[in-house]
């Protein structure tokens, strides 16, 4: 920051008032004075001035920031930022500039933002400069780089300078700039290198070609990393939708075709929760997850007590009856909420993405869903392996009579197990509501996939489900760029069908006598 100014510091409003009708050379001095002002609004103000968005009202001379809309120009006070209504374009007048002033403004803006105390602001400033920087700004960056302590911003600055230097006439400088650029993944760097490589067969263009090859190699690497990430995120959605099923189908041997609709119930629970707490969307998911678990779990217990318990030992009939339940649930949702899709808001902490580097950024919602699915999976494993309920569930699934003889209320355990599986379906629905539209057909889209995951993994084996879900997800996403989304899905289905021929009991089959019964 510049320490002091010669004359007593005047506030920005006064300077702006003077700036309005001053001669161009006076304006230049006044802009200099604005730069040294400590007012925080100055940077935005100068940017607006450069962009031509800074006006003053003809009546009264108040400086305003305007943005043109259909009804007129929406204006805000230039210094306080407070709304000042909509005015007609004719009531406004622009602050006039010439090219010298524009150049000066650019330098001042670069200086102010590069020297800001706010790290995010400095970073944004450098990012903005990369690729569209003139010699004036480059000069500023060269000065600021010495004072910059943050490693990431420093390297960004170096790239910004290298981009300018690559265009210079001095071959040595160009070469050093190229070697700098070859480490960068900024799209601007690649574009500039491509320009240089077209230049002929000189040393510069050869160096540029090498650098391009290097960058593209790394870009490919990151692109495949991204594909794997997408695959894992798809896999975790599959995992979420399939582990509930792995319990009801795998542990209890019940084919629950209404599983998808239990997920739909979870998604609609999220929708209702958000309707009830419209002002605190950011926290809605923390309410929705347990609530969806409870709602879907209760519905599941209802299904088990009302229908499924009459059909134990008759898997095909269970399949049909639960399919009937799924139709009823779907139609109920259509009647209550309308057949149209409902959109569920994404909390602010889940939107946006984590930019690891310019070539690789991971969206937060997918990232959180991967973490969430792992969490749910771990919780489920804990419940089954470490709690009394889990012990009873495993006992009943292995030998019902023996468990009953030991005093386990098998009916109660069945209801609880089914409730647990259904509750997890509900939780999966909450996660899905963050990825897709919430509609009556939400469940149908996932039910076949979920069954295939469970069957592929091996029935009654949670780890198998985990491996199957993740590998299906990654495989699907790896195929997609080659053959397209729909064909990838078809191929996957065909491959699974073939796989089941080869290993009818899945990747990790259960062994022992239980299998054949």
């Amino acid at each position, binding site marked *: 920051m510049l320490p002091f100014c010669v004359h007593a510091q005047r506030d920005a409003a006064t300077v702006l008032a003077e700036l309005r009708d001053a001669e161009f050379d006076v304006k230049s001095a006044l802009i200099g004075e604005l730069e040294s002002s400590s007012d925080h609004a100055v940077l935005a103000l100068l940017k607006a001035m450069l962009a031509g968005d800074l006006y003053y009202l003809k009546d009264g001379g108040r400086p305003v920031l305007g943005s043109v809309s259909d009804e007129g120009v929406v204006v805000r006070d230039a210094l306080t930022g407070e709304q000042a209504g909509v005015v007609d374009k004719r009531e406004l007048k622009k602050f006039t500039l010439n090219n010298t002033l524009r150049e000066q403004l650019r330098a001042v803006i670069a200086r102010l933002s590069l020297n800001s105390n706010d790290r995010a602001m400095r970073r944004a400033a450098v990012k903005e400069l990369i690729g569209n920087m003139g010699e004036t700004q480059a000069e500023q960056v060269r000065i600021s780089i010495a004072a910059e302590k943050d490693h990431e911003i420093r390297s960004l600055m170096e790239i910004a300078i290298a981009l300018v230097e690559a265009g210079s006439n001095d071959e040595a400088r160009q070469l050093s700039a190229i070697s700098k650029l070859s480490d960068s993944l900024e799209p601007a760097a690649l574009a500039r290198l491509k320009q240089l490589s077209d230049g002929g067969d000189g040393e510069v263009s050869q160096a540029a070609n090498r650098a391009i090859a290097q960058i593209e190699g790394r870009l490919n690497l990151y692109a495949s990393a991204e594909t794997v990430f997408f695959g894992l995120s798809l896999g975790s959605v599959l995992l979420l939708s399939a582990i509930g099923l792995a319990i009801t189908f795998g542990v209890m041997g019940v084919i629950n075709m209404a599983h998808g609709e239990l997920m739909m119930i979870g998604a609609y629970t999220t929708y209702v929760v958000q309707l009830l707490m419209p002002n605190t969307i950011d926290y809605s998911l923390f309410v929705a997850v347990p609530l969806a678990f409870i709602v879907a779990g209760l519905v599941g217990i209802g299904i088990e007590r009302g229908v499924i318990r009459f059909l134990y030992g008759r898997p095909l009939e269970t399949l049909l009856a639960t399919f009937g339940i799924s139709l*009823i649930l779907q139609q109920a949702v259509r*009647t209550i909420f309308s057949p149209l899709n409902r959109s569920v808001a994404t909390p602010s902490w889940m939107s946006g993405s984590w930019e690891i580097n310019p070539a690789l950024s991971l969206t937060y919602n997918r990232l959180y869903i991967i973490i969430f699915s792992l969490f749910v999976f771990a919780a489920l494993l804990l419940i089954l392996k470490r709690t009394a309920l889990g012990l009873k569930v495993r006992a009943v699934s292995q030998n019902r009579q023996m468990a009953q003889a030991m005093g386990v209320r098998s009916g109660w355990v069945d209801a609880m197990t089914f409730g647990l599986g259904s509750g997890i379906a509900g939780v999966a629905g909450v996660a899905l509501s963050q990825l897709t539209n919430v509609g009556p057909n939400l469940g149908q889209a996932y039910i076949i996939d979920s069954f295939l995951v469970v069957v592929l993994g091996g029935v009654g084996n949670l780890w198998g489900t985990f491996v199957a879900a993740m590998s299906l997800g990654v495989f699907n996403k790896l195929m997609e760029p080659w053959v397209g989304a729909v064909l990838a899905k*078809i191929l996957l289905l065909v491959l699974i069908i073939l796989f089941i021929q*080869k290993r009818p009991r899945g990747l990790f089959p259960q062994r022992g006598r239980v299998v054949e019964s």
Partner: protein
Amino acid sequence: MNTSPSQYQSILARLYSSDRGGRILLQILLALAIAVPILNLAVPEGAALHLSTYTVTLLGKYLCFALLAIALDLVWGYCGILSLGHAAFFALGGYAMGMYLMRQIGERGVYGNPELPDFMVFLNWTELPWYWYGFDQFWFAVLMVLLVPGMLAYVFGYLAFRSRVTGVYLSIITQALTYALMLAFFRNEMGFGGNNGLTDFKDILGFALHEDATRVALFVITCVVLAAGYLLSSFIVRSKMGRVVVAIRDAESRARFCGYRVESYKLWIFTFSAVLAGVAGALYVPQVGIINPSEFSPLNSIELVVWVAVGGRGSLFGAVLGAVVVNYAKTFFTGFAPEVWLFFLGALFIIVTIFLPKGLIGLFDQVKEKVLAHRRAGGGEAGL
């Protein structure tokens, strides 16, 4: 196989005398095949007894569904293979017939291209894909109606049964099969009309499809084919092969240990059933005038299972009865309150599986037995 004609006759006669449901069905079909043409063509429009062409088409549709239900009943009711993808064979048969009808449109399409169907012109295709060759010939289309579903079922069944995929696993992969086919047929690049499917048919074998006489003829043909399909199926289930198939349903391992090649029996009944389903689809398409990928949707296959469950699986007559009853209910409900239909269908699934494991036929038998028992008891008292 040196069965003389008289022996065939005796088989037919035995079949006819032992199967009361079949007798009723054949009589009804005969009555329909005679009455419908008269009521539609001879009775003037506006007369009380006139049967509208709409109703004829609707009845024809029910009969196609009945044939499809017989096909499913063969594998599910008699062999215990619950296929959740049987509508796929129906749709494939339908597509084969649809392709023939498409080629018959010729220059009368919107774009007037003599060779290519409209949707191909629309996609800027310049020549007919190889798999459309031959479909301008009726005999070829009919061959494909039989071969395509049959081959698919054979290959799929060969793989599945050989590796002993049974029970729910088989159900789920058949569902995956029809789902994959649906996704594939939705793609425009497949060359089957994508989303819209095949439609706007003009004529079949030179007869205009919009004419009442053609519709009635199609209806009568459907009656005949259904009767033939019924007789053939009931011949199969009463034959030695049918007995083995039932044995496989009831105790697969035991049948295998007795020395029967379970896989082969399953494979043949599955393939035959798929062919039958394909024929039903081929009869269905010219009557309703459209075939699109939604016919492959897993829901259709499952609805089909419910027809058979409602009627009574393990009884061919029950399958026909279920198909007609459920579809009539569907027409009835979707007519005045579409939203009620899915509630009704869902409830039907649950009620039938819990309370009527043998379907309506089982219910009749139960009632009959009760009445007989009552009469016997009553008769006994009267005798005292």
